[in-house]
């Protein structure tokens, strides 16, 4: 919301402080000022000028050669703007002047034509975004101060400061100068005045300057109209829920033309564009009071009646912005006897717009319910100053005042006479809402006590009426402009805290009771995994949960982009894209992991998708950074398997799995896919599953199918792993310490010739199960194939460790056990001792 400093001053005579000081106070009150703009800044040398002649440029299609009266005789200016017209007024930067952007104007020749100065747009003057082209000055020729060469700042009243105030959505009352002035004025609401109209000679205005309650030029509702005539139009509301009240006033005999300078200055100061006196006045009153108003050309209202009703199927309306709108029965329309004239509370129609030839108007000042306005605004994709206020809520008690103010200003600026009584359909609110306020409750919520006098002192200036019932109970009457956000006790308490000043509350830390919510164990598991993987030289990645089609089951209905139309059901695909991204930038060694949520569609219609937390990792490049002693070689299956087994050891069972077996299923194992099998996305035979201790498959890892990847030719194998983590990790068992051996053990090595199809694990398992009670461990320390080993065989060397508790072993015992092992290997799976 743009606020004019001068406008605020005219509303609140006791207002103190510079624009910067006011901005600081507004920020402390909860309405940060995002920008403070001194409108006259850099405009010293700019003057008002009249273009007397426009002709085409002989050497350029887009340029025009203009003769311009800039006060110091006629000068020639070459201009590129499409909207330059002879007879119109524009800002001129004469030779020697400097624009706010720092550009200095010099005499120049543009394609052979002399140009002495520059006609300016709003953008060039730093006055707003504006439309394309020059800033058109619709000056009143009758105003004696309008002279070529007059300083622009003075003529347009730009000696002002614009504050851009951020207003929260609960405070529609602050979408007006009156509302902001009420917050800032020392004397509060009661001290505000209705600014007199500068140079307003109209008798219709005499009373209007007196302030609240004065009726001014507006005829009393029941009494005879000032002009004595009949309004000639009636108002009927068909949907009282959506339009509780509609006031109308006919004014006849107006003359449409440019607004007086003071009015244009006010509008410009807040960035609004002056159009004509009638439209400008309705905008002015909206910006002053927050009440949107609309003026219809009375001649375009057919059948002598205004009907507030739902639009009918098939009805259309060309709105003021020139767009043909399809209306639906969900929308409220302001209609004449036959057709819609306006979308209620959003925008008027082009056909009934006030234009140069309009002589009689109907002023509309109505109240519309917020929800439906919001729905209509969204359906039409059309947000206006009016809809913005109606959907947040306008003061239900402020209609009469706004209409009177508007009528006064129309008469003062465009002449004419109000005719007939105010047309009043619907009903005014009977009473202002009253909200009970318990004094002790204030201290309970805010932490410091407030008594009745303090409450009164804080709330009364904002227009609240505070009444004391007993020592502990107050009743607060809420003014209309706050009836939308103050409906409960807590709303009043917030108002007390805000007006007291948040910074005046102490911040002493008090003792607290511990909470009843246990720390969710998944956080600790994630933390442990992060520490482990960081220590193993992996970097944590974070990728958004959005995935392209094919990588998810759950669709986003209104995605940011088509590539992000689904929610991922796995993490590895996005990590692979990160591998591609890094390799494309020459980062050869890519070791990433991610902990994140994946989504699967729920079987039950309408239910939330099921969510799980996954751990995924991807590896590409060397196993260790290069070193002058020799390189470590590329990442291989054994690194991935080792990492996976270590991760598996860190992941406990799932307390949310439903059974005791789940909860105690600590540790995960890696299992090759049966028969060198395949899994989607991985290279067949180079992929394994991760199973938890209940035997359920919880993950897959292996070499990523190169067909999935878009990598440079030098890229090597990419390895990937994805594991589903427990929903609620069970506590990990506490390790029980074993006493250390007192006597040394014995190690024996066996070099075995193993038929090729036999898996190594089978050899180890058989050795283990036949080694007797003294065998404490079996490990593979060498695997060899090639020269010296017959084809169809692998040489696998295993080391067996024997030990007895509390004594030393004898050779005979160990020899016996070795004999058992070798016999079992030979007889059960056909494994022979090498060289034996």
């Amino acid at each position, binding site marked *: 919301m743009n606020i004019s400093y001068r406008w605020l001053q005219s509303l609140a005579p006791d207002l103190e402080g510079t624009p910067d000081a006011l901005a600081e106070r507004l920020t*402390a009150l909860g309405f940060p000022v995002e920008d403070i703009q001194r409108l006259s800044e850099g405009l010293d040398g700019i003057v008002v000028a009249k273009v007397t002649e426009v002709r085409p440029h002989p050497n350029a299609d887009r340029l025009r050669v203009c003769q311009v009266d800039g006060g110091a005789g006629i000068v020639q200016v070459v201009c590129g703007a499409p909207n330059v017209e002879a007879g119109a007024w524009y800002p001129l930067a004469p030779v020697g002047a400097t624009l706010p952007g720092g550009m200095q104007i010099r005499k120049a020749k543009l394609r052979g034509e002399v140009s002495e100065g520059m006609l300016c747009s709003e953008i060039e003057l730093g006055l707003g975004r504006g439309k394309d082209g020059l800033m058109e000055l619709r000056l009143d020729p009758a105003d004696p101060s309008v002279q070529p060469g007059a300083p622009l700042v003075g003529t347009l009243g730009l000696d002002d400061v614009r504050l851009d105030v951020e207003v929260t959505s609960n405070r529609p009352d602050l979408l007006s100068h009156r509302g902001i002035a009420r917050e800032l004025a020392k004397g509060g609401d009661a001290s505000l005045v209705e600014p007199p109209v500068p140079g307003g000679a109209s008798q219709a205005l005499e009373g209007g300057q007196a302030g609240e309650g004065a009726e001014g030029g507006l005829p009393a509702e029941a009494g005879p109209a000032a002009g004595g005539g009949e309004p000639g139009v009636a108002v009927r509301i068909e949907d009282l829920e959506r339009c509780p009240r509609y006031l109308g006033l006919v004014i006849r005999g107006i003359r449409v033309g440019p607004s007086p300078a003071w009015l244009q200055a006010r509008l410009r100061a807040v960035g609004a564009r002056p159009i004509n006196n009638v439209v400008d006045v309705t905008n002015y009153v909206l910006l002053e009071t927050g009440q949107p108003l609309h003026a219809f050309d009375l001649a375009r209202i057919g059948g002598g009646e205004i009907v507030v009703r739902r639009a009918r199927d098939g009805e259309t309306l060309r709105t003021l912005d020139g767009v043909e709108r399809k209306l639906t029965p969900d929308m409220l329309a302001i209609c004449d006897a036959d057709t819609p004239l306006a979308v209620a509370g959003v925008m008027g129609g082009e056909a009934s717009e006030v234009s140069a030839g309009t002589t009689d108007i109907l002023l509309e000042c109505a109240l519309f319910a917020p929800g439906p306005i919001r729905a209509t605004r969204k359906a039409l994709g059309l947000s206006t100053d009016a809809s913005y206020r109606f959907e947040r809520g306008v003061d239900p008690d402020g209609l009469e005042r706004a209409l009177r103010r508007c009528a006064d200003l129309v008469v003062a600026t465009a002449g004419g006479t109000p005719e007939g009584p105010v047309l009043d359909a619907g009903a005014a609110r009977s009473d202002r809402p009253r909200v009970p306020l318990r004094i002790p409750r204030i201290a309970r919520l805010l932490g410091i006590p407030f008594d009745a006098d303090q409450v009164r002192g804080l709330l009364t200036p904002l227009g609240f009426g505070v009444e004391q019932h007993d020592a502990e109970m107050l009743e607060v009457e809420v003014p209309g402009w706050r009836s939308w956000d103050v409906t409960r006790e807590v709303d009043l308490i*917030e108002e007390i805290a805000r007006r007291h000043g948040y910074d005046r509350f102490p911040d002493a830390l008090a003792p607290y009771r511990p*909470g009843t919510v246990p720390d969710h164990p998944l956080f600790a598991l994630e933390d442990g995994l*992060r520490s482990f993987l960081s220590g193993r030289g992996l*970097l944590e990645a974070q*990728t958004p949960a959005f995935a392209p089609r094919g990588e998810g089951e759950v669709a986003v209905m209104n995605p*940011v982009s088509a590539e992000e139309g689904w929610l991922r059901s796995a993490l590895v695909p996005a990590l692979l894209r990160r591998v591609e991204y890094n390799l494309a930038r020459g980062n050869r060694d890519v070791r990433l992991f991610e902990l994140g949520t994946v989504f699967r569609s729920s079987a039950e219609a*309408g239910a*939330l998708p099921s969510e799980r937390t996954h751990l995924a990792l991807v590896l590409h490049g060397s196993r260790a950074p290069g070193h002058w002693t020799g390189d470590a070689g590329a990442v291989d299956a054994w690194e991935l398997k080792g990492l996976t087994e270590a991760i598996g050891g860190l992941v406990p069972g799932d307390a949310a799995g439903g059974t005791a077996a789940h909860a105690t299923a600590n540790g995960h194992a890696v299992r090759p896919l049966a028969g060198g099998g395949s899994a989607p996305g991985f290279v067949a035979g180079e992929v394994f599953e991760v199973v938890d201790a209940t035997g359920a498959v919880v993950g897959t890892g292996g070499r990523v199918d190169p067909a999935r990847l878009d990598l440079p030719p030098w890229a090597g194998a990419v390895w990937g792993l994805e594991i589903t983590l427990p929903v609620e990790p069970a506590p990990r068992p506490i390790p029980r310490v074993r006493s250390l051996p007192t006597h040394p053990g014995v190690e024996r090595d066996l070099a075995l010739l193993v038929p090729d199809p036999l898996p190594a694990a089978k050899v180890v398992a058989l050795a283990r199960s036949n080694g007797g009670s003294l065998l404490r461990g079996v490990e593979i320390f060498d695997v060899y194939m090639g020269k010296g080993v017959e084809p169809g065989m692998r040489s696998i060397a295993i080391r067996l460790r024997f030990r007895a508790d509390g004594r030393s072993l004898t050779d005979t015992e160990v020899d016996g056990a070795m004999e058992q092992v070798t016999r079992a290997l030979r007889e059960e799976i056909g494994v022979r001792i090498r060289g034996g």
Partner: protein
Amino acid sequence: MSGTQSLIDALHALGDEALSAVSDASGPGELETVRVRYLGRKEGRISGVLRRVGEIPAEDRPALGAEANRVKAALEEALDARAGEFAGTGSGNEAGPAAPVRDRTGSSPAGDGGQGPGTRRGVLDLTLPGRTTFPGGRHPITLVVDELWEIFRGMGFTRARGPEAETEWYNFEALNTPLDHPAADEQDTLYLKGGNLLRSHTSPVQVRVMQDHEPPIRILAPGMVYRRDTYDPTHAPAFLQLEGLVVDEGISFVDLKATLAEFARRYWGPGTQIRFRPSFFPFTEPSAEVDVKRVYTDEDGVERETDWLEIMGAGMVDPAVFEACGIDPERYTGFAFGMGPGRIGMLKYGIPDIRAFFENDVRFLSQFADR
């Protein structure tokens, strides 16, 4: 003196050369050749150096002689040891071990005087780089979350989590945000089928925790949230948020201010100033924006202040939220707050563009490694 020193240096150089010739010798015959070349009385190169003793002052001569004896003794010891090796392997001929193998460890085993490419004059060349591992570490946003959690843990908080896909009720209505209120628009929401949505803030976790647990409640809920924002330097459609909730009897606005001020001083340092500004959130009342002003010391050692930095939203839990969760607002009061670890991280680490968090360039991530 310089003449003396250059002779001593020459002696050492010869000694090094001879020692490496000994270790390269492939058999006893070659070993004998080395002995004659360096220690031989007439042609021996060390003897050659000693013959130049006349070039140096008389008082320096005993020192040179002693140095020469040390070099000779070391060489003789090496020759004997090497000869013993050849005798032990039984290799009596010149074939011996195959051509010298490149020493993959870069240095010989400790204590043997030091040989191989990693040594210089018999000792390790410790200017060579050590062996490294790849940098590993947490994502910068995780680093921030962990730091924040550490502080709140010290203030008695525990962590809670909730689903990222939510219902309209949990995301809006239970949080006192009617669906037709403009406040529901301000967070442009991503919708799923059946009226479900991706949570636009972590506040639904408040509701779920309050439904499931009796006060006192002191929780922190870090989690991803989603908005229909396109990527730009300060926006992303998915980002991390960290929510806090405290509910008990007697919790007041003063406790809210005290808790967050204490947090800010612990995180940004004791000189940190905190500013509370009134604001509006449908699910808290009174509501506040919290700004901090940090004090830091610049490169010239001058103490400076930052501007006010907006770091979180906070407020007292609205009674309507308590009612939606089945908690008696007359008995219990509470406060809630929410902040963006990503934004805090951008300020802290000087990251200019939020998209760096999602690109996961290893050159970016590794700057946060091992922290």
